[in-house]
């Protein structure tokens, strides 16, 4: 561990350390005991890997240049200016920013006159910028005699040193390498140029052949004979780093851009994009509702391994009239938003939750915001559903296998790119991928570019983008949150209408979203033929009968139609209603005191006369009303058994239209996933305070505070936790009572840093060290004073 680095780290201000922890949160999990610990943690390969992954193309290039040649800022700047076509001013500006960031992340330390990489960074970056290994490494496995021969051919003075090291000294001189390059044929030079910008290794047969410059038969042999290429295996050769650098003319990169590549695409009218996004949002909410309604009555089973069967997904997609990927996405979002969960019978079924019912009564924009924010924090990749994983296993929607931690991060990055684009710009997928590749060049492979594509199409489907451009409400969701998003979306949504157009071909057209009451009623009274901005319903004998079954009379049905029709009810429709009613039963049953109501006294007489009704203990109240002592349910069942078709009536005399077959799961909704966001600033601040304190103690062996005397503090558990949280936030010290592992009651003065998983991490002033305390053993908290 470099002492200089540790000292540099220690010299950073608290604010700078907090910035470090914010940018590399893994360094304070768990909180290291002191700055030396922090420095050690920062130098581990895994922590460095994660830090480097967060660098953009340019900052990474800065680090790579420093890996190759640490030193003054001037030289670095010079090399970078030559690394691409960008104007010097832009490079300088970007360099200042990149250095600031690298220092903040503790990847670079030292003054401008002597910039150095933090310990371990060089190794983590190796090989930098696609260069080959140093020549000493290339010839590591060559026989010393062979290297001697090569040295002789190169005209190196025989000074008796280790051959490999002498070789390295020869090649360390760029002039020397340049002279060697001047000796070779153009074909050989062309072969080298192929390797110059990477990949720096190639395949040739019989790579280990021994060749002298005079006997070289082919371009490759010319190169091998001069050490410009070295064999690294039976059939592989590598370009030594020193040669590569000369070929690259002393720079590491040739087309380095100091700024992210611009996004290109189609510029949309912003209004149109917003409205299209709103249209998609509206459709998505509607599909979510349809999905839940569908599954309330026809719940798909939970697979034995979890998840939703492919067959059920197909069926759902068909019923909702959407492609399968969209159905999988919808199912995942609805699940993530807690609207469906597994439950029901023993084998398990996917059923709507009680939360669905509360979601349902909220406004469309709030419902959308709930779904869209569930998407932002979804740590799964719904786009993979229906495909196969690395082991060729089928991936099912809602299955645990769809968890991909990268998905949430790529989604956030992709959306950030979209949000950062010119308003109205619908960037092409390629340019988004290019931008992301620049922003995180080390993050490649896996499903990352696929995840970006998923994100783009999902954003369009859910309405965060409209025609490919970030919509106003999408931006509000990303910048603000649910409330802001709902507020931005509300004015773009169509007003609900309470009038439909009835037509003679027995269709009804609702030219917009219906008020929820009317919508539900129509869904019962007619069959939906077409959906979208409007809804087309068709009345049929069956649908009219459904209304009558639900207890409304033909007159009530027609009155309802008249009330909600902009035009007179067409004759064929009223004829249809009359025709169906002609053959339909007319019994009605009430709840409050269990009564039977019927417009036709004769029917009641019939009921009373039936011997089977004796058990119901019926009493006639009026020619059209009969009361019963039994419960409504028993009454209805018995009447049905007698062959009537009674319906339930609510307190105020309305018929209760409910689908008795709609079911809900008892299980709680899925736990909301902790979203992709940085660490909490308060926690970071507390952690840094603890490190500082620990460091001070560690270095000066600070005197421990004496244990405070007197009775141990005692407080109820909830109060303890609240007080500790408050102390973390405020950065104040507290006095606690603690039962140690032997059960001994002790008294401590703490500076709490973090609380998680039932433990408190804090700097213990009475022990002068950072400790973890089990929360359940803390007897109470009191103010230090």
């Amino acid at each position, binding site marked *: 561990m470099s002492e200089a680095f540790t000292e540099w780290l220690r010299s950073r201000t608290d604010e700078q350390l907090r910035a470090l922890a914010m940018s590399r949160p893994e360094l304070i999990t768990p909180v290291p005991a002191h700055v030396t610990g922090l420095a050690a943690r920062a130098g581990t390969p895994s922590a460095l890997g994660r830090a480097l992954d967060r660098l953009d193309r340019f900052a990474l290039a800065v680090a790579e240049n420093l890996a190759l040649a640490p030193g003054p800022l001037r030289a670095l700047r010079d090399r970078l200016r030559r690394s691409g076509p960008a104007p010097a001013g832009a490079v300088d500006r970007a360099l200042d920013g990149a250095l600031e960031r690298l220092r903040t992340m503790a990847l670079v330390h030292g003054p401008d006159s002597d910039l150095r990489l933090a310990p371990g960074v060089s190794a983590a970056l190796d090989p930098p910028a696609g260069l080959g290994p140093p020549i000493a490494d290339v010839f590591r496995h060559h026989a010393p005699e062979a290297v001697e021969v090569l040295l002789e051919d190169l005209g190196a003075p025989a000074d008796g040193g280790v051959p490999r090291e002498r070789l390295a000294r020869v090649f360390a001189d760029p002039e020397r390498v340049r002279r060697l390059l001047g000796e070779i044929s153009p074909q050989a030079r062309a072969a080298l140029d192929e390797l110059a910008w990477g990949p720096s290794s190639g395949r040739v047969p019989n790579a280990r052949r021994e060749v002298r410059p005079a006997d070289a038969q082919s371009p490759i042999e010319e190169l091998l004979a001069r050490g410009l290429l070295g064999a690294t295996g039976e059939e592989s050769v590598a370009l030594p780093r020193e040669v590569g650098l000369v070929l690259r003319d002393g720079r590491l990169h040739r087309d380095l851009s100091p700024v992210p590549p611009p996004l290109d695409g189609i510029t949309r009218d912003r209004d*149109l994009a917003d*409205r*299209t*996004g*709103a*249209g*998609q949002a509206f*459709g998505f909410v509607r599909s979510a509702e349809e999905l839940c309604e569908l599954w309330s009555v026809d719940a798909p089973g939970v697979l034995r391994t979890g998840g939703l069967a492919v067959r059920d997904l197909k069926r759902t997609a068909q019923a909702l*009239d959407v492609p399968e990927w969209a159905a999988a996405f919808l199912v995942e979002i609805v699940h993530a938003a807690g609207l469906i969960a597994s439950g029901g019978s023993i084998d398990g079924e996917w059923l709507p939750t009680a939360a669905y019912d509360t979601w349902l009564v909220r406004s469309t924009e709030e419902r959308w915001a709930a779904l869209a924010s569930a998407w932002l924090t979804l740590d799964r990749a719904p786009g993979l559903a229906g495909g196969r994983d690395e082991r060729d296993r089928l991936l099912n929607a809602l299955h645990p296998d769809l968890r991909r931690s990268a998905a949430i991060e790529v989604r956030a990055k992709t959306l950030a790119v979209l949000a950062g684009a010119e308003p109205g710009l619908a960037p092409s997928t390629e340019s988004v991928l290019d931008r992301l590749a620049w922003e995180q060049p080390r993050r490649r492979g896996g499903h990352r570019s696929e995840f970006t594509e998923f994100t783009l199409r999902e954003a*369009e489907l859910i309405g965060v983008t*409209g*025609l490919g451009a970030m919509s106003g409400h999408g931006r509000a969701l990303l910048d603000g949150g649910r409330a802001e998003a709902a507020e931005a979306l509300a004015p773009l949504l*169509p*007003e609900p209408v309470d009038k439909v*157009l*009835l*037509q*003679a*071909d027995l*269709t009804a*057209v609702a*030219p*917009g979203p219906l008020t929820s009451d009317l919508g539900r009623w129509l869904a019962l009274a007619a069959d939906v033929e*077409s*959906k*979208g*901005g*409007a809804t*087309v319903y068709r009345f049929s004998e069956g649908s009219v009968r459904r209304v009558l079954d639900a207890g409304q009379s033909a007159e009530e049905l027609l009155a309802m139609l008249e009330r909600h029709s902009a*035009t007179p009810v*067409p*004759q*064929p429709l009223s*004829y249809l209603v009359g025709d169906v009613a002609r053959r339909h039963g007319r019994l009605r049953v009430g709840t409050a005191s269990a009564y039977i109501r019927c417009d036709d006294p004769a029917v009641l007489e019939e009921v009373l006369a039936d011997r089977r009704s004796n058990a119901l203990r019926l009493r006639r109240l009026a020619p059209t009303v009969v009361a019963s002592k039994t419960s409504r349910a028993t009454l209805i069942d018995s009447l049905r058994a007698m062959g009537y078709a009674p319906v339930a009536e609510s307190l105020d005399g309305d018929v209760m239209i409910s689908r008795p077959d709609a079911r809900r799961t008892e299980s709680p909704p899925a736990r909301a996933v902790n979203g992709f966001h940085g660490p909490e600033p308060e926690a970071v601040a507390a952690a840094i305070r603890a490190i500082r304190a620990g460091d001070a103690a560690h270095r000066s062996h600070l005197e421990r505070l004496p244990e405070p005397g007197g009775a141990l503090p005692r407080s109820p558990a909830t109060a303890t936790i609240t007080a500790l949280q408050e102390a973390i936030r405020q950065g104040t010290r507290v006095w606690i009572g603690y039962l140690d592992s032997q059960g001994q009651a002790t008294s401590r003065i703490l500076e709490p840093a973090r609380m998680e998983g039932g433990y408190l991490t804090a700097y213990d002033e009475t022990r002068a060290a950072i400790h973890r305390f089990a929360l359940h053993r803390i007897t109470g908290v009191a103010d230090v004073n």
Partner: protein
Amino acid sequence: MNDGPLIVQSDKTLLLEVEHERADDCRKAIAPFAELERAPEHVHTYRVTPLALWNARAAGHDAEQVIDALISYSRYPVPHALLVDVAETMARYGRLKLDKHPTHGLVLTSTDRAVLEEVLRSKKIQPMLGERLPDDTVVVHPSERGNIKQALLKLGWPAEDLAGYVDGEAHPIILTEEGWELRSYQREAADAFWHGGSGVVVLPCGAGKTIVGAAAMARAQATTLILVTNTVSVHQWKQELLKRTSLTEAEIGEYTGAKKEIRPVTIATYQVMTAKRQGEYRHLELFDARDWGLIVYDEVHLLPAPIFRMTADLQARRRVGLTATLVREDGREGDVFSLIGPKRYDAPWKEMENQGWIAPADCVEVRVTLTDEERLAYAMSDNEERYRFCATTPSKLRVTEALVRRHAGEQVLVIGQYIDQLDELAEHLDAPVIKGETRVRERERLFQAFRDKEIQVLVVSKVANFSIDLPEAAVAIQVSGTFGSRQEEAQRLGRVLRPKASGGGARFYSVVSRDTVDQDFAAHRQRFLAEQGYAYQIIDADDVLR
């Protein structure tokens, strides 16, 4: 919020609110790429199908125009997926082209190699192709011009046929506009066809499709083969052509079961063309008998399958199809598109009616309640016999009589399916009957007497479904039909749609047995007309009898 008249649905239907002030403009903008599916009183439904989009491409519209029309008239945001789909579908048309090569004859060319490779791999396409030439060009056997178009359409890559037409044998034909003139829409239809080369003109019954045919012939100035549904229709075409054009009796030939004349203009029936002897089509030579410059297909929606096959071999000749509806009960709309040609012109029925070109009509469904004995018999009848039983129930007799009485003094047609029923009706109504076995001469005498109002009531079987010109028929009573055939219902209504000398409207009754399959079939039959905006009023037979 955009206050447009159009609502775009996610299932690719378009709802047009007709009372909206911009509805007319909108209709014009969307008509090229959307098929009118339903036209009831308030909201018309159009459907955007691949065929409709390709029709639009063939007519020179591009995806941008389509998308622009959708966005600018749509009240709500247009679903993104739909826009993408429109652009993709339209881009499929014309990737492949059939063209004439100076040395290799008919060739298939492509601007997109991937598409060409895809279709070349198809087992259906391979046998039709010859040598592969450079520049993504493949030789097509000239005889496969029609088949390859059919096959490519099925693969979803409709080819644009640019191989041109033979001129055929020239023959002067002039429209003689004396005492009448070509209506504006008839001229537009003929022009649209001519510029497109080949294709289909969609006009309502009674809108003068024969004249559009004559106008097309006048544009072609060439020998013409006309294919029609039956012999009576042959005679009517002949009469019309004599009346409307410079053609003389000697220039028009009839090619029917009875006569086999081949003249510069020859009118043949589908039936004679598809007649087989010993498994061979006997009259195929008619197609080669002359160097036809134009082939007219009357009632394209009825084109029988063998005619499609024959048409596949006639792709080098100009073809015009005439029909009231592209709806086919057999779903072969795609074959009409690839073999006859894209839709070149259409006009909605109600619009024609509003402009006075066809008579307004009231459609009434009369529901007859079966007597108890009839119900019992109906319930016990065999499945195959059920429709016949309820369609010919004696109760209908009384209702029909009452209806005829109600319209005493008007020209009434009674149309039915079953001969027994028709004979019985004729007897009760004391009216002559025309059925399959009635001789042509006798048929024409009766039709003429009906036109001259010498007889007022005529009972006809389905032989009179098509193309019988009876301008003064004001009332049609349908007592039974060919199950649920939608186009038959439209054709029958068409019998009474000619504008009346009196300027009055027409009335169409459909007598139906309540609560039987007759009622179900009737509902299906009525769909096309209901969708065209004809509202069926439903009344009880008792109201008629009272």
